[in-house]
């Protein structure tokens, strides 16, 4: 993709075909967080939170970071802020997208979001990249 970004440009999406419960198990170690809603379907059911394991929130942020880094090669994230709007579950098909809102010198600011196929936006926010 050209580095000549301008406001309104859509960044190349980043797709996760199917959220993996194996990754959740790995992340419970990375985060030193053994919360069973990420590991045990029976616990999720018992808590009335559905019938699938729930992805750790920071993984969803990482997907949006992956989108940014792939769409703007050579850039680095200077700031990012996003809101958690809904859960992501094992097996969900996800698409992270971004839209450039401004370019100021070597700073590119964009709106970002993470959508679940058939269920809508689960995470949204703003990021600024140094390009």
């Amino acid at each position, binding site marked *: 993709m050209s580095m000549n970004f301008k406001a309104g440009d859509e960044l190349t999406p*980043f797709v*996760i075909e199917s959220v*993996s419960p*194996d*990754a959740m198990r*790995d*992340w419970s170690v*990375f*985060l*030193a*967080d053994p919360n069973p809603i990420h590991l045990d379907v029976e616990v999720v059911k018992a*808590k009335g939170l559905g019938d699938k394991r729930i992805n750790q*929130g*920071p*993984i969803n*942020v*990482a*997907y949006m*970071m*992956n989108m940014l*880094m*792939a769409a703007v090669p050579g850039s*680095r*994230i*200077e*700031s*990012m*802020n*996003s*809101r*958690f709007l809904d859960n992501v579950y094992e097996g969900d098909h996800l698409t992270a997208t971004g839209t450039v809102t401004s370019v100021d010198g070597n700073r590119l600011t964009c709106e970002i979001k993470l959508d679940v196929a058939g269920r809508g936006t689960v995470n949204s*926010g703003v990021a600024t990249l140094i390009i």
Partner: protein
Amino acid sequence: MDDFPPAPDVAGTSLDGTKVFTISAEENAALCRSTGVEPAADGTAHPIYYYIATQVAMGKTVAGVCETCEFDVDDGPMMGSSGVKFADPLMVGESYKVTGEIVSLVRKQSRKLGVMDVLTYRLRLHPEAGGDALLETDNVWVLPRKELAG
């Protein structure tokens, strides 16, 4: 709203850590691949380590932060938002330590969740050897207060 007791006064509680967090090449690679990408070739770690390193090496566990807020972690704290400002990228093989504090705990009435406390805490990641922070992050959690539900 005025019928509820105020949220515990916890603003200013230190979250300075004593642990050292080192980003290993092996774990960074596994983490990157678990999110669908290969690790960077230039030695930078995945930027999501802003969250992981600060959470793991802060001075309290998530359960401990909840306890400070007089909230049982088993009652289901929910992430509201997470923000970060980087001064420098995180590097594989480097070791870091954390400073931070609880910024606020605000009791609110939510149509969807009933009474809840909104917890904001701020963490900074520094080189183990000391010096300016590489990043600062604000995390916001929602603590549903089922016991105060009407």
